[in-house]
């Protein structure tokens, strides 16, 4: 694989890192560090892309090629430094490759390994140095993350004190966004974010003043013909109604549809098969007439006819676990997403046939209402009104007619919704636990237990809170739905927390790199841990280090226990223990890192919003 530009190169490397994170099926972290070497001219920037996913293999880099001529060859010497380790490895392997060398004769130069000292972790760090301005790189990466990961890039210009670029955007996201959501949900949520921002880094208030104005649907198909390979295609559809087309950011191409395509969690170019899949869709079933599908390299553009649409359709498709595109599955996934949308939102995307049928509704209603009103049978009339949900005094022809018409239209629209077949849904994290969590939550609430009410709890310190076997399940996805005000209290640094990375918004950095200093996580305390937003987090010691996972999303309460008085701290701990007992799905992992004995972090997320509601209610009072 030969890269034409620097952008292609780092996008590939980041995508590979994301893929490794996803394969690890754990909560992972992805860090991108842009570090300018002091006093170099032209500016030399070290790009470090590190992740805590599964370890990489050398073949991932062996096939990559840097052109010997061209812009990329001028800005990059072709050398990459790779440090990687798998979970059960005892050391971290280090080597360097020159991607300008011939692929067949290229050999890695092995560098001294680092010993892991018995600590189990995995990850990869890829470093390369390029002659490029940090600003240019940052702009490109910002765009990439916005579009594809929707997380923020922060760069640290070490040579100029205080020049750290904290281009972080945070927002309150709906509670439906969840750590336990599937990749499909994230595709959908990510597309919503993309639509809201549509190219800029901020939500456009003029086009979409409210997130609720967006309506979305999703669909997913799996092909499991062979045991070894399984193609999964996910599709998301977001429809936004455009109230004012004159002031709309989409301008003249207001009614065209951008179809974003991703392959293995990375954006990809549009293929013939993909375009064919788009044109093969029976759009008329959704009341749309496709004029043409155009390859725009980064996306496909669908042009609708004959009249412009009064709404905007956005589509994203993600294929993974296989190298080739399967147009049938792509088509099916998009159709499922459209069907899902139709099932959720009555009256939208009605087929051309349904629209035609709906035109008969007034006449049908008039005739049926006439049959009722012309009848001499008063009992029959009363009975009909009752069935229609009308009161006896509402027997006027027009009211009856209107009610019947609405019922006819409703029945017609129901017909337009296809019964969804067996929709394959990606397994959720803590599938069993959700039910338990719900149960526990309700019970707690009924019993008057309020996790926010620390004053009434007993004291006591948990000794060894070990996760309930959750680490080996699916990864926790994204960091969403938090209260951004908390970050006013917290330091923000230059790396990224990443769960299920691609389509999340929010998420924010930590204070160190994933792999450095020969092994265990070299984290700067207090700079990263509480950035798990919708959590109830208890931090027991300034220097504690831990990794953690979260459950269902909800109210954010991050507390730095060290800032509290002893009594309060104890109360917090006790509460956490209670919660741990009540919610067996608590994910907690302590003692990772150098200073394991010095502190523990308990992080807990609570499921339902009842508590949060109660808290808000209290606040209002």
């Amino acid at each position, binding site marked *: 694989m030969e890269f034409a530009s620097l952008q292609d190169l780092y996008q590939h490397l980041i995508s590979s890192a994301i893929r490794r994170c996803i394969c690890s099926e754990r909560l992972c972290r992805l860090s991108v560090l842009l570090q300018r070497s002091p006093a170099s001219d032209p500016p030399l920037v070290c790009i470090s892309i590190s992740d805590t996913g599964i370890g990489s293999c050398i073949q991932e880099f062996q096939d990559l090629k840097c052109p010997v001529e061209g812009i990329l060859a001028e800005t990059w010497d072709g050398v990459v430094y790779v440090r990687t380790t798998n979970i059960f490895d005892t050391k971290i392997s280090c080597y360097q490759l020159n991607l300008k060398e011939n692929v067949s004769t290229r050999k890695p130069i092995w560098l001294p390994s680092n010993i892991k000292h018995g600590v189990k972790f995995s990850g990869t760090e890829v470093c390369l140095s390029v002659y490029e301005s940090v600003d240019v790189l940052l702009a490109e990466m910002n765009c990439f993350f916005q579009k594809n990961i929707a997380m923020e890039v922060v760069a640290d210009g070490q040579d100029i004190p205080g020049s750290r670029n904290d281009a972080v955007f945070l927002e309150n996201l709906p509670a439906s966004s969840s750590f336990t959501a599937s990749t499909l949900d994230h595709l959908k949520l990510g597309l919503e974010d993309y639509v809201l921002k549509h190219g800029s880094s901020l939500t456009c208030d003029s086009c979409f003043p409210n997130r609720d104005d967006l309506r979305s649907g999703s669909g997913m198909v799996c092909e499991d013909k062979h045991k070894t390979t399984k193609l999964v295609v996910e599709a998301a559809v977001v429809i936004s109604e455009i109230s004012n087309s004159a002031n709309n950011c989409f301008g003249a191409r207001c009614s065209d549809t951008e179809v974003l395509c991703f392959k293995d969690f990375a954006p990809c170019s549009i293929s013939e098969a993909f375009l064919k899949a788009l044109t093969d869709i029976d759009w008329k079933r959704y009341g749309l007439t496709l004029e043409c599908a155009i390859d725009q390299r980064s996306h496909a553009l669908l042009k609708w006819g004959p009249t412009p649409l009064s709404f905007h359709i956005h589509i994203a498709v993600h294929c993974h676990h296989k190298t080739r595109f399967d147009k049938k599955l792509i088509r099916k996934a998009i159709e499922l997403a459209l069907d899902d949308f139709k099932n959720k939102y009555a009256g939208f995307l009605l087929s051309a046939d349904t629209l035609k*049928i709906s035109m008969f509704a007034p006449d*049908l209603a008039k005739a049926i209402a006439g049959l009722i009103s*012309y*009848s001499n049978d008063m009992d029959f009339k009363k009975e009909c009104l009752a069935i229609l*949900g009308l009161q006896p005094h509402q027997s006027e022809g027009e009211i009856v007619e209107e009610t*019947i018409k609405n*019922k006819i239209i409703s*029945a017609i629209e*129901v*017909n337009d919704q296809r019964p969804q077949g067996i929709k394959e849904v990606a397994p959720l994290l803590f599938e069993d636990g959700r039910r338990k969590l719900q149960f526990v939550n309700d019970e707690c609430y009924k019993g008057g237990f309020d996790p926010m009410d620390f004053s009434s709890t007993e004291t006591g310190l948990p000794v060894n809170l070990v996760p309930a076997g959750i680490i080996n399940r699916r990864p926790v996805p994204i960091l969403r739905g938090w209260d951004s005000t908390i970050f006013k209290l917290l330091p923000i640094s230059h790396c990224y927390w990443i769960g299920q990375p691609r389509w999340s918004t929010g998420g924010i950095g930590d204070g160190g790199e994933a792999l450095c200093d020969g092994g265990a996580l070299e984290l700067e305390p207090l700079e990263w841990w509480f950035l798990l937003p919708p959590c109830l987090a208890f931090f027991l010691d300034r220097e504690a280090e831990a990794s953690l996972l979260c459950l269902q999303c909800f109210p954010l309460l991050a507390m730095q226990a060290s800032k509290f008085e002893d009594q309060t701290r104890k109360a917090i701990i006790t509460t956490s223990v209670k919660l741990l007992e009540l919610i067996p799905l608590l994910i907690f992992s302590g003692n990772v890192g150098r200073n394991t004995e010095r502190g523990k972090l308990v992080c807990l997320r609570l499921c339902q919003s009842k508590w949060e509601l109660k808290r808000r209610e209290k606040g209002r009072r």
Partner: protein
Amino acid sequence: MEGNRGSLERIDVLRKITELTKSMIVELSNRSSKMISIDRFKSYCTNSLENCCCRFNLSEGKETLTLQRESHVRRLDVLLRVLLIIQQLLRENRHSSKRDIYYMHPSVFTDQSVVDRAINDICILLQCSRHNLNVVSVGNGLVMGWLRFSEAGRRFDCIKKPNSAHFIPVQVEEVTDIASPADYILVVEKESGEGYSDKSWFHGSRKLNFKFHFDQLKYLVSYFERPVFQRLANDRFCSRNRCIVITGRGYPDVPTRRFLRILVDVLALPAFCLVDCDPYGFDILTTYRFGSMQMAYDAKYLRIPQLQWLGAFAADSEKYNLPEQCLIPLTLQDKRRTEALLQRCYLRREVPQWRLELDSMLQRGVKFEIEALSVHNISFLSEEYLPSKIKNELTTGKF
């Protein structure tokens, strides 16, 4: 008494309309698109006799009109509009013709056949006959001969002028006081001569919008006044033979069939049918005897199981020495139609000898009109052919 019965029937039909309306509202309230289910009836099938169920007059499944298909919704729209009109007719005890109904929403109905179908659907839904809906059709049929009857208080005495044609009454169900000294009823296919040979130019010229001069029109009138029914009238057939002659003028309409059925039931007379020796004539014959497919649901009130086929048979061409010029080769369409007729279950079951005659026509490959029998003598039909055939039927047949 008759009025009371009619009133009760009206109330019953109105009650059924309310039930139907209620069922539709319930379906809509459940967000169901299944609006109504209409039984499907067949007057015949093409199955073997072992697998045939037509004789039991049972419905052949149901047809459900839903809000899922445009064609269904269109049909439903028409059906409900017609039902609303019918409800008003019944409430006010007024009568209306199918044509009147058509002109109430011509742009929606688009064609008379659409209204006819809706009326049939309503009859099936409400389990009644068309006359129960107060929908009448202007009768096409004619009657003459030895017959007296009353219709809605009006007295019809055909016996005074037995060779004059009278229109068959519109409200057949209100026909009473039927009296006749006739020996039999003769049903003829055609009132007027609608031959194959000379007719084509007329239709062709109509298509070309020819304007006829008065002389030409006179010729046309005289041409169409050479009918079987008219021939019999001119020949004073009913004066010489004590009989009732009826024609439906082609495919018989409901009043004609119903009137004939009432006559046969009330007077208990043998009935004979004379049709052209061609597949269309045979189809008309089967319509009289077994009912039509469109109104299969009401066949039990319309069919005339006693009807006998008098002619013309394929063998008549030889028996009566018809010249070859009078014999017209069967077209491909005729052959296909004949083969389809041969497949009908009721022929196998009830009149296998008719099948043999039909098959004989197919084998010979020719057809001819009744009028061809007049080739040697213009009164041959009324003076020789019919009397001999009827005498033969009455003496040798079951009558």
